[in-house]
């Protein structure tokens, strides 16, 4: 049976909680197929270090090493029974067929890496944008993959479970430049958003609390500049932030916690500083200029009042 070891560094536990929400496969369906060697929140026995020793001495074959949370070697800030997360990861990292970072903390360092008192906080293979994480840039696991980053703060369970299943069935997993599974992160949050009609016709909205209007122009939505299938695979299988009326925070990108003023769109001369991915500023100005001169009857009304 293939095996999985789940380790936690500096974390809020949010990815674990998110994965418990998984459907098709559910958490327990997944771990009927794969043996869960240890998970800090869910295992019955307190035997992490015994398992680590067995992996080190090849008594247990480790298929998947999953890490949640940022990495530090400093025991002052992270300590599990006398070992820092860096030390524990270091002991098993060469034994795993695949290594998966779940969430932005394990991928990029994320919010904990902003804490200045501890300069040694990293992602597994990246720290923010740079490939200078805990492991060397050229590190490959036994099956010759770099650390596979499932980014997000938190991740959607399906992004993780479906990637894990693909590896389980030995399907090739194509990665993007941040070593994220391409087929998950090739979509933008914008794709499939039910507010797209307002985006197309540049129907701006000035304030929260309306199902009409696009959140990109004034309210800080990062949907068109964020790689995430939030509107393809819905959250909790029912909705998404932008569908509900909340701007996308860009939480799957390396710079998520480096951004500020999340609920307003930074603009220069009325033009958003960051235009949608794939579009030049000039093309963006042209197309929005045209859209603004034309009127869509539908998008200028409350939805209940449309024909």
């Amino acid at each position, binding site marked *: 049976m293939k095996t999985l070891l789940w380790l*936690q560094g500096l974390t809020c536990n949010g990815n674990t909680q998110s994965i418990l929400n998984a459907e098709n496969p559910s958490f327990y369906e997944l771990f009927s197929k794969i043996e869960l060697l240890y998970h800090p929140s869910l295992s019955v026995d307190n035997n992490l270090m015994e398992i680590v020793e067995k992996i080190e001495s090849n008594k247990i074959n480790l298929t998947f090493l999953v890490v949640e949370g940022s990495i530090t070697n400093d025991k002052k800030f992270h300590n599990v029974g006398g070992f820092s997360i860096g030390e524990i990861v270091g002991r098993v990292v060469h034994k795993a067929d695949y290594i998966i970072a779940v969430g932005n903390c394990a991928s990029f360092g994320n*919010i904990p890496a902003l804490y200045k008192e501890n300069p040694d906080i990293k992602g597994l293979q990246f720290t923010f944008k740079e490939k200078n994480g805990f492991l060397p840039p050229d590190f490959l696991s036994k099956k010759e993959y770099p650390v596979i980053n499932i980014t997000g703060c938190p991740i959607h369970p399906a992004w993780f479970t479906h990637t894990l299943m693909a590896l389980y069935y030995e399907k090739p997993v194509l990665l993007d430049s941040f070593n994220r599974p391409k087929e998950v992160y090739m979509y933008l949050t914008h794709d499939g958003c039910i507010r797209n009609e307002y985006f197309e016709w540049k129907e701006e909205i000035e304030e929260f609390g309306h199902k009409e209007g696009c959140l990109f122009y004034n309210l800080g939505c990062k949907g068109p500049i964020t790689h995430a299938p939030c509107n393809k695979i819905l*959250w909790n299988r029912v909705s998404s932030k932008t569908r509900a009326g909340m701007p996308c925070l860009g939480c799957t990108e390396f710079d998520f916690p480096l951004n500020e*003023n999340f609920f307003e769109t930074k603009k220069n001369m009325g033009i958003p500083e960051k235009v949608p991915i794939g579009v030049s500023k000039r093309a963006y100005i042209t197309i929005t200029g045209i859209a603004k001169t034309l009127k869509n009857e539908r998008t200028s009304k409350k939805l209940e009042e449309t024909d």
Partner: protein
Amino acid sequence: MKKVSKTVLNRVEGEIELKLIWENGIIKDAFIIAPNFRGFEFILRGKPTLDALVITPRVCGICGHAHLLATTSALENLYKEAGYSLQTTQKAKLIRKITLSSEIVQNHIRWFYLFVFPDLLKLTNEESLFDYTPIKGSKWRKAVDYSSKIVKVIALFGGQWPHTSYSIPGGVMCDPTTTEVMEAISTVDSLIEFTEKEIIGMGLEEYLSIKNPDAYLEKSNGDLSVFFKTVQKHNLDKKGKAYKRFLTVCNLYPVISKGTTKKKKCPFDIKKVREIKDFSFLSKKRTGKEYSWATAVRYNRLPYETGPLARRVNNKDKLFLNLLSTYGDTYFSRIWARVDEIVKFLFFMKRWLEELDIKEPSYIRPPVDIREIEGKSYGVIEAARGSLIHFIETKEGKIKEYSIITPSAWNLGTRCKKYHSPAEKAIIGLDNPLFAEMVLRSFDVCSVCTTH
């Protein structure tokens, strides 16, 4: 003979180490050690005020929604302190109550079946408990299914769970249609059916009319009853007493009423709250006595227990006043109170959903931009594990100071010079390491919140 034992505790949120000092087979002293630290209060300094809504939920993956609402409350109070009146519609208030309740129900179900029940499997190998085995057991699986189902309600209004930031000063960001409200009602109905059939083993209304704990245990074969019958068999029912002092900081009518109870109930006064760092790694003076990243929190200089049991006592629920007089503030009462809240929150969530008038505005823009406000305020909320307080000070549009007192800091923070924390106190005097772990878990340990 003196002996020291150290265990890294699993099946809690995050990691906690329990250091026990044994003398002649009895626990003489207990240290609850939170060994991990992320520095959220430091990270928040200098951030634009409103960004706290994005950052604080990420303190905790299981009660992040409560952190969001504590921040919202702190920011709304910031307006009030500056002399602005903020209008929030009944609709926005109800939606916040509904989503907070969903998170609490989720938490209590996961905690009861995933964190607490497996302890019984270590206590006994009765075949009847096999259904509660992690991953394999049908009861464990149902708990995962239904705890995941109830957070769909948060997603319907807030877009996702964990980590939405859909609540802001002035209201909520969503604009639900009847469709979402009906889906939420159906979800709650389905949870009610699960609760009646599996957890309490009787109808909601019948359970809510019960005042005598033993009468319930006799009558029911639900999981709650199975749990307590096993616990009684192992004489755990009267173990794990803390101080019998209870604190609740916020109303959520009619499920939660704020106040503090020592001998009798008194009003809660924020001025009496003190955070003490003497035994914390956060202490500025190093004395060598520091043992955790947690701090100690005291009310009127005394340790108070917060959380579901405190809420039930401060709400003067008859069943719990009776439980307290028969069993005391023990493992038993603490666990029952958590499970009891599943019933009460579901019951009222349904009402709140029915009361929701979607025609009201979701959001009323505050009179000025929050960046124009300089000052100090605080926000309070009752999270799954109890009283959560956020203090904020802003200057020039940015956060100058942010301080978070979590429920876990109240319950399992460090000692102060005079008193142990409630959880440390509850462990001292036990004679079995498993019981020590079990009593600690009865506080619903969240180390990520304890230290943040």
